[in-house]
Every structure is written in structure tokens, then in C-alpha cells.
């Protein structure tokens, strides 16, 4: 009997604060959703133009699981649509990462590449990726390729810029230390400059994956007939704002997950850095 009641008050308080610490990050989203639901139900706007969160959730549920065909032809096809978009993101992002890191390191490291390659790339950079759509459609037709091309354009420049920056800002003394220990040109690049530039390169990858999702949806609105962006645009034509919002939520969620994935890889790769950052110290 006694052992059951033997819970110290201090420990209970500690557990309660722990529980609330987990909940505090939910406060703002919960308030927003509750406000939105109340506003939608108040009837100020017709439900078709501003669907309540519950309606959006219903649409999303049917889109994913296909329980009552609220979403008509899309019912139960969420996975297929999400996969179509994700593959485009992955394709364009992978290509952009590879080429962006290669070109960025080359430009940051070698005066020759800086002089020959950089001006052209920097001139292409301010051109909005979306403005390539007409050309992309002519070149690649209406399929995955123009979308991957656009994703590539959106993701390439953040990777490039951050790789250049990372290589250029490598501590000059580390390079000296490497030379002192007998590093040749190739070792200087692979064993010193590249690891030293990694934090900056990862920062570029994180920006790039966000751009990649933005661009794939844009491409799907005009150049492709599948994916989350296509569903979003198609539903707009039929004034199905519940599906439009469900598509927006899906994109946000997948983009967030992609970023989490890169952050996880980054945390593993840059474990040495964790104790030097503000966050590392605080945690």
C-alpha cells in the first residue's frame, strides 16, 4: 500500500513540466486551427471558398485512404501523387547537389575556374527558374524531364553559392598546416578544404531542398499532369479549395520531412561541430 502512494511531490512536478514542455510547441498551431475552424463555421465566407480545417482534413483523409470519394478521382491516390512529386524533387535535387558542389568547389578553389566559369553562372543565377518553363516544355516536352530541369535550376544555385563560400572562407592557416604536414594538391582539397567547407555546403543543401519543392509544384502546375502541384492546380479549376489546402499541407509536410532528413545526415556528418555551436552548448 505504502509503496503505491510513495511518489515524491518534486518528482511529480518535474514530470508535469516535462509533459508541458512537449506541449508548448503545439500551442500556436492549435490556436490557429481553432480560430480558423471557428471563422469558417461562422458563415462570413461561403464554405466552398474557405473550407474549415475539419473539411480539409476530411479531404486529405479521403485523398490518402479513399474512404468516401469526397475527393472524387483523387480518392486514395495521395501516395501516387506524392511519390511523383518526391521523385522529381529527388532527381532534380540530386543532380543540383552533385553539380553544384563540384562547380562550387572548383570555383572556390581555382582561380582559373573562378575566372572562366563563375561570370556565366552568376549571370544565369538571377533569371527566375520559372521563366525557363517555356523553353523547358519545348526542350523536354510534358513529362518528368521539364520538372526535374526546373527543380535542378532552383536547387543548383543555393548549393553552388554556399559551396563557393565554404571553400573560400576555409581558414588560411588550416591550409598552411596541411602544407606543413606535406599535403599535395589533391589531399589539400579532399582532406582539408572539403571537410572544412562541409558546414557551409550543408547549409546550401538545406536551402536547396526547400527550393526544390517550390519548383516541382510550379512545374507541375504547367508542365506535368501528375503530382501534388498538379492536383492543387486542377482542384482550383473545380473550386475544390479543400483539396487545394490538403495539397498545400501535403507539400509543406513533405518539404519539412526532406529538411529533417538532411538535418539528420548533417548532424551525423558534422558531429565534430555540435559542441561549438550555440545550440550545442545550450543543449
Amino acid at each position, binding site marked *: 500500500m505504502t509503496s503505491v502512494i510513495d511518489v515524491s511531490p518534486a518528482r511529480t512536478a518535474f514530470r508535469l513540466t516535462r509533459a508541458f514542455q512537449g506541449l508548448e510547441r503545439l500551442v500556436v498551431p492549435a490556436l490557429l486551427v481553432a480560430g480558423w475552424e471557428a471563422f469558417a463555421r461562422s458563415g462570413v465566407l461561403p464554405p466552398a471558398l474557405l473550407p474549415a480545417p475539419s473539411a480539409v482534413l476530411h479531404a486529405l483523409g479521403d485523398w490518402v485512404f479513399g474512404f468516401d470519394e469526397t475527393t472524387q478521382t483523387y480518392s486514395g491516390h495521395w501516395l501516387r501523387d506524392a511519390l511523383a512529386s518526391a521523385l522529381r524533387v529527388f532527381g532534380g535535387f540530386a543532380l543540383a547537389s552533385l553539380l553544384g558542389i563540384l562547380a562550387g568547389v572548383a570555383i572556390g578553389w581555382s582561380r582559373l575556374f573562378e575566372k572562366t566559369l563563375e561570370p556565366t553562372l552568376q549571370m544565369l543565377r538571377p533569371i527566375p527558374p520559372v521563366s525557363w518553363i517555356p523553353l523547358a516544355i519545348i526542350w523536354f516536352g510534358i513529362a518528368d524531364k521539364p520538372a526535374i530541369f526546373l527543380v535542378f535550376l532552383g536547387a543548383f544555385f543555393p548549393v553552388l553559392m554556399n559551396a563557393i563560400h565554404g571553400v573560400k572562407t576555409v581558414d588560411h592557416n588550416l591550409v598552411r*598546416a596541411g602544407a606543413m*604536414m*606535406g599535403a599535395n594538391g589533391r589531399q589539400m582539397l579532399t*582532406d582539408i578544404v572539403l571537410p572544412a567547407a562541409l558546414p557551409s555546403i550543408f547549409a546550401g543543401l538545406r536551402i536547396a531542398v526547400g527550393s526544390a519543392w517550390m519548383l516541382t509544384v510550379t512545374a507541375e502546375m504547367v508542365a506535368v499532369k501528375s503530382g501534388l502541384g498538379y492536383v492543387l492546380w486542377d482542384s482550383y479549376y473545380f473550386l475544390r479549395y479543400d483539396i487545394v489546402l490538403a495539397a498545400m499541407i501535403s507539400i509543406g509536410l513533405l518539404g519539412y520531412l526532406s529538411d529533417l532528413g538532411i538535418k539528420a545526415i548533417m548532424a551525423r556528418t558534422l558531429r*565534430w561541430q555540435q559542441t561549438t555551436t550555440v545550440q550545442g552548448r545550450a543543449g
Partner: protein
Amino acid sequence: MAAIELRNIVKVFSDKRRGRDLLTLDNVNLDIEANDFVCLLGPSGCGKSTLLNIIAGFEQATSGRTLVDGKQVERPGSDRGVVFQQPTLMPWLTAIDNIAFHLKLKGVGKAERHHRAMEFIDLVGLRGFEHHHPSEMSGGMNQRVGIARALLMNPSVILMDEPFAALDAQTKLELQEELVAIWQKRRCTIVFVTHSVDEALVLGNKIVVMTKRPGRIREAVNFDLPRPRDITSPEFNDAKRHILSLIREESTRLAQAS
């Protein structure tokens, strides 16, 4: 043959923005014998670090010849170990991997690298910290790694550029003692740049006093006080008085010139 021979070293930095040339080293001649512990002593801006960088191969003299073991210095190399003012370790490598980095560059396998680096971990008293990253260690510990890294290459000379300047007084004393012990044990040639008269007198058996801009060698003082040195002894103070008078003459000369 001396371990390091500096012949008529002149270094001019061109200040392009102001369209001026700055004479930093003016005809420096110096012989450093093998197993010497030489302290280059001078005020900041006297070109002592520049001289060290020229020996290291990081910078080229405008004219003059730099020979290490009779060979002309053209570029940095592992025959000259450098300990920097800041530890300058690879932040992504652990202490032991930083110390063994030279071996990695030479293609030595990991087990062999770690085996050979352990000797130096012990030498600088870092056992138990071999798998720590630089960010997890204090400034003094990182500088120990920097010293061990230079020693592992078994270089003919070790060049140190005010390596203890950024450390607190107590750590500095500790490391000075340990450096002397290492030097006595391993019989290596050390060139140590410092602006502190006390540090030079505690460490060196030859103290090269440099003049302020343009850098010249004022006097090379031999100082063979037995170790461990008592910094309150009359001999220590005599040497200190002599060196301070050299420095004071120098500042009056500068004051009159200006």
C-alpha cells in the same frame, strides 16, 4: 653546417593600396645550430613572425637565401614542423587523428597511425583525451596537440610562432616547462618566436633580439643557465637586464629618429 642558415634575408611587402613598399626584414643573417633552442625576441611588427614564415616556406623572401639542413627552402614541408599561434587543428578530427594527420597524408593505415600517435599523446600528457575533438578541449590542450603533431613528423627543426601567447599565465608556465623537458629528451632544434623577455629567457639557450621595423638582428645572446631555471636568480636577472637594455636603446633610437 648549421641546421638553419639565413643569408641576407630581405622582405619587402608592397602596400598596393597606398602605393608604398614596406621594408619588413632588412638583411638578416643568422645561423642556428642543430639542437639549439633559439628564441626570436622582438616587439610586435618587427618581422619575427615573417622570418619564421620564410623558414617554414609559407612566405618567400624578396631576396636572400634560406637553407635548412643545407637545402634551399622553397615551399612548406614536413621537414619543418610548425606550431601556430592558434592551435590550427582540423576541427573535424579527434586529437589522435590530428596528431597522426601527417601519417594519413603519407598513406599509413589507421591502426599503425594510432599506434604511432599514442607515443606523442603520452609525451604531451593527453592520455584519455585522444578521441576528443578540438572543440571539446581547452586552448592549452589543443596547443599540446599542435606540439605533438609537429613532433610526430620528426622534423629537423620545429618552428613555433608565439604558441603560448593566447594561454592563461598558469597554463603558459606549465607548457613552457613541458616544452623544455621535451626538447631535452628528444634533442630537437627549436625556433621560438616571442615578444616576452621572460619567456625567451626561460626557454632559450640562444636569444636573438630583433629591432623594430625594419627588422634587423640587434644581438644574438647565448644563455646557458642550467635548467630548471630559477627566474629570481641573479644570473637570470643579469641576462634580463642586458636584454632589456638592448630593447631600451632601440626604443630611444626610434624616439630620436621620429
